[in-house]
């Protein structure tokens, strides 16, 4: 490595081909024509040399010891076993918590509550109240109605009132 840090620019239109050439990915026809170009182009040749020198530097080897792989296998087996147990429980009980079933259960609950409130209203009232209270409940509106009927009596006598207000009546 020279370390001077000066880079020569390759032919702009060939830069991508040079990268593919470096990695052996350039198809045969282009590969051949690029080789011909390289024999007469110092910049493109230098570019390829740069890639050959620099790209391997980016690779970092890691070669873990045998014990690492033994731990690796053991840990993975535990994780898989835990996942399998979890999925067994999910299969057994998870069905109850599926979104579709939850929606269905919710809908059924709402319908049940609505039906109970609609149809069971009278049944609950008669069951909840003692007989004496029931009688009282029937009498109370009647008492209120009596006042009303008293008012109605006055209204029935409207003819008398009109007569009393008239000059004949006053006389």
């Amino acid at each position, binding site marked *: 490595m020279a370390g001077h840090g000066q880079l020569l620019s390759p032919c702009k239109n060939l830069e991508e081909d040079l990268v593919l050439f470096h990695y052996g990915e350039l198809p045969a026809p282009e590969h051949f024509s690029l080789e011909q170009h390289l024999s007469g182009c110092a910049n493109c040749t230098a570019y390829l040399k740069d890639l050959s020198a620099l*790209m391997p530097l980016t690779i970092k*080897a890691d070669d873990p010891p045998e014990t690492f792989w033994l731990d*690796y296998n053991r840990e993975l087996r535990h994780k898989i076993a835990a996942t399998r147990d979890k999925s067994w429980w999910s299969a057994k009980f998870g069905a109850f918590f599926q979104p579709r079933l939850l929606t269905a259960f919710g809908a059924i609950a709402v319908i049940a509550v609505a039906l109970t409130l609609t149809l069971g209203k009278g049944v609950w009232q008669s069951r909840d109240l003692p007989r004496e209270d029931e009688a009282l409940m029937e009498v109370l509106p009647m008492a209120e109605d009596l006042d009303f009927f008293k008012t109605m009596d006055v209204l029935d006598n409207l003819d008398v009132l009109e007569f009393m207000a008239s000059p004949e009546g006053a006389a």
Partner: protein
Amino acid sequence: MRTGDEELVAAAQEGNQQAFEELVERHKQKAYHIAFDFCRDREDAKDLSQEAFLKAFVNLKKFDGRSSFYTWFYRILVNLCLDYKRRLKRSPTDSFDETLENQMERSHEPNRPRSPDQQVLAGQISRKVDAALQALPAKQRTAFLLKNHQGLSIKEIAELMQTAEGTVKVHLHRAVTALRHSLAEFV
């Protein structure tokens, strides 16, 4: 005759655990090394590659064989690695450089004795390279790591990244150009 991945997958889908363990045995080293390329940390690489195997195990029944197991599995792994990178970006307290400092010393060509000067230079190069790789956009970095480090073909990378081969070539070219400029001092 060695059983193919497809047969092992079929057996594993039927609940044969040994078949799945054989798949793990076949792919664990490559999976680990891909994960290591992304995270540069031995423990994290182990966790990421194991997580990929777990995901594969859980979703094995959904694998329909339209792509090869190899492609399907490494797609899971690469996605996990990219998620790892995103998580790392969100939590700046987990210093990537710090992790590298600790890890690289033991992971870099472990058996070769070096002089102090060589060690200093290797450390400088390592830091510079890591910074340059970190600076790459995710897709460029992925294409570059899979090509330069793992030696996958452009076609395989395109399948893993679920993109066109032309797009992979563009990502690779941009990554190489950026790295060449970042590492110019070592030429």
